[in-house]
């Protein structure tokens, strides 16, 4: 190192030191009266605010907590770390700051805990700003109705239960049925779609999270994704703030006018963590021992999902909360609450799953209240007919089990329906691009697949997709960019499908 750079370093150090001004401030302090189960009761602190951060000074260092209860002579606090070193009588200082998380472009591609600390072994986040964890949702004036699609890449969802940017769509079903798989596929499919993603894992096994992060990395999805983790072994307080912290990170991108997709996996564990905290704080229990404000717990979180209008940046937050039901009971307390808050739900059914219909989306019970305004024109054109075919098939299939003599029209409907059910099957981690989805559905509803045997449909589809990408990429590009399919495109598509069929030998003659 030469003298020049040495002097420069010394000069910089000198500048930092001379620029430092120590400020002595009066602080509000209190003493620990009671501690246990991650909850503390603290005397003094007459100026403490709701959700204010507190610092517990122990012999082995500082532990932080958040005010959740304000009482006459004391405050109730949840600890955000290990409270085993805290003793009765220890000093607690109010930090005069509402709980907040660091945000910057740096958080993309990282795995963080709900306080913004890294869990991936990399450097700490260089905070550009701090965003409050709890924030009031955007008001009526700032919003706009949902009109742009989120392409999940899952055929059954994009066609029949479209999700729009700014929508809240619940994913609900029993355990081990592919709820997380839908969310992860959706994240993977956001590549090149101008979308930032935040995946919030609440109370999940750390091994499962490690698997998900590895999968996202392999798919190149970590380039636009942040993972916020409150694992199964973290205290209930971290599980409780995790979704709010994830949402605060999403709001940073929203304020820059970007579109964000946020996944809360899952809110039933979040409700359980909040119930634990509430009961320890001696708040009265209600139905299923949940506290009275468990509805507000989720409504204030999901209300922060929004589509802002142009005057306010035009960004959006799309929320995909996940709820795990017990033995298919959607009428339990938390599922009904969240169903009523969201703009629709994707219901996954065990029976379908074990029959091999994966993703096991029940098209009858699943709805999207935003509807077709969240679909591109080309998709709207084919999806309407698809939905009708699917509904007719479901009705006829139940009916046809009893009778054997069926007229030709019914038989045709049943055959078409069987093929439709096959088309809706899709493997995990293989999201399909929207123009290909439109082409496949178009072929199906126009009877171009009627000559393909049902058990060969998936093979046919795979080959068709490859053939179309190679041969009519101009049509696909049109669908993708102009978002409509005109008559000349339709003709080209029909011709291409027929050409492909000519190369096959398993067709029904």
């Amino acid at each position, binding site marked *: 190192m030469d003298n020049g750079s040495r002097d420069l370093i010394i000069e910089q150090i000198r500048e*930092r030191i001379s620029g*430092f001004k*120590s*400020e*002595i401030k*009066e*602080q*509000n*302090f*209190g003493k620990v009266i009671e501690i246990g189960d991650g909850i503390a009761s603290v005397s*003094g*602190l*007459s*100026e403490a605010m709701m959700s204010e951060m507190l610092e517990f000074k122990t012999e082995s260092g500082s532990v932080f907590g958040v005010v959740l209860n304000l009482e006459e*002579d004391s405050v109730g606090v949840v600890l955000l770390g290990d409270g085993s070193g805290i003793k009765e009588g220890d*000093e607690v*200082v109010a930090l005069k700051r509402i709980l907040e998380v660091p945000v910057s472009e740096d958080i993309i591609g990282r795995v963080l805990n709900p306080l913004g600390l890294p869990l991936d072994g990399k450097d700490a986040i260089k905070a550009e700003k701090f965003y409050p964890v709890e924030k009031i949702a955007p008001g009526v004036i700032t919003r706009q109705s949902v009109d742009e699609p989120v392409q999940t890449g899952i055929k059954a969802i994009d066609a029949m239960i479209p999700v729009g940017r700014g929508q809240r769509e619940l994913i609900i079903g029993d355990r081990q049925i592919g709820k997380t798989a839908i969310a992860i596929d959706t994240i993977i499919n956001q590549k090149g779609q101008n979308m930032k993603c935040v995946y919030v894992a609440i109370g999940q096994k750390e091994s499962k999270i490690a698997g998900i992060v590895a999968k996202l990395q392999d798919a190149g999805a970590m380039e636009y994704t942040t993972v916020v983790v409150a694992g199964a072994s973290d205290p209930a307080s971290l599980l409780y703030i995790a979704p709010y912290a994830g949402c605060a990170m999403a709001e940073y991108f929203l304020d820059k006018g970007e579109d964000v997709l946020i996944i809360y996996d899952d809110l039933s564990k979040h409700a359980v963590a909040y119930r634990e905290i509430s009961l320890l704080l001696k708040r009265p229990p209600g139905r299923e021992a949940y506290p009275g404000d468990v509805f507000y717990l989720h409504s204030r979180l999901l209300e922060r999902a929004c589509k802002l209008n142009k005057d306010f940046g035009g960004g959006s937050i799309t929320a995909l909360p996940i709820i795990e039901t017990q033995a298919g009971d959607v009428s339990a307390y938390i599922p009904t609450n969240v169903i009523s808050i969201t703009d629709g739900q994707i219901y996954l059914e065990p029976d379908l799953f074990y029959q091999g219909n994966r993703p096991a989306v029940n098209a009858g019970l699943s709805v999207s209240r935003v509807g077709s305004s969240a679909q591109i024109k080309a998709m709207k054109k084919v999806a309407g007919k698809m939905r009708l075919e699917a509904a007719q098939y479901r009705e006829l299939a139940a009916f046809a089990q009893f009778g054997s003599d069926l007229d030709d029209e019914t038989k045709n409907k049943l055959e078409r329906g069987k093929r439709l059910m096959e088309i809706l099957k899709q493997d995990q981690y293989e999201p399909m691009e929207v123009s290909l989805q439109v082409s496949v559905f178009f072929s199906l509803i126009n009877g171009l697949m009627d000559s393909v045997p049902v058990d060969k449909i998936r093979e046919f589809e795979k080959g068709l997709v490859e053939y179309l990408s190679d041969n009519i990429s101009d049509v696909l590009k049109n669908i993708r960019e102009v978002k409509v399919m005109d008559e000349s495109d339709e003709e080209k598509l029909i011709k291409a499908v027929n050409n492909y069929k000519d190369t096959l030998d398993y067709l029904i003659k």
Partner: protein
Amino acid sequence: MKIKAKQYAQALFEELSNKSEGDKSGVVERFVGILIKDNNVSQIEKIIYYFEKIWNKEYSIVEAELKTSQKVGDETRNLLIDYLKKVSEVEDVKITEKEDKKIKGGFVLKYKDKILDASIKNRLNSFKNNLLN
């Protein structure tokens, strides 16, 4: 209904305030008798805590704790007392002093539920944090 420590303290204070010096010990004796009868002797520490609070408020006193690394001179102490009288708007300040080598220099002043940490240790810590960020 269960009587709370704060209510006991309030009652004791009110009873004492309109009694002459001679009667006061009798009042305290009867008060302890009531506590024993109500099976509430275990609450005595809380009652004392609240009693002190009520007393200090009524007579405009503030209790403070001053922690320094070495003994403070009268001049500094008077300055601090004047400061406390001004900020908490009271007439009398009771200061207890403590020596603690760990704070290295400066002082830590605690009164009511406020803390004024002007110790060298605290300043070094914030300097460290400033350099790290």
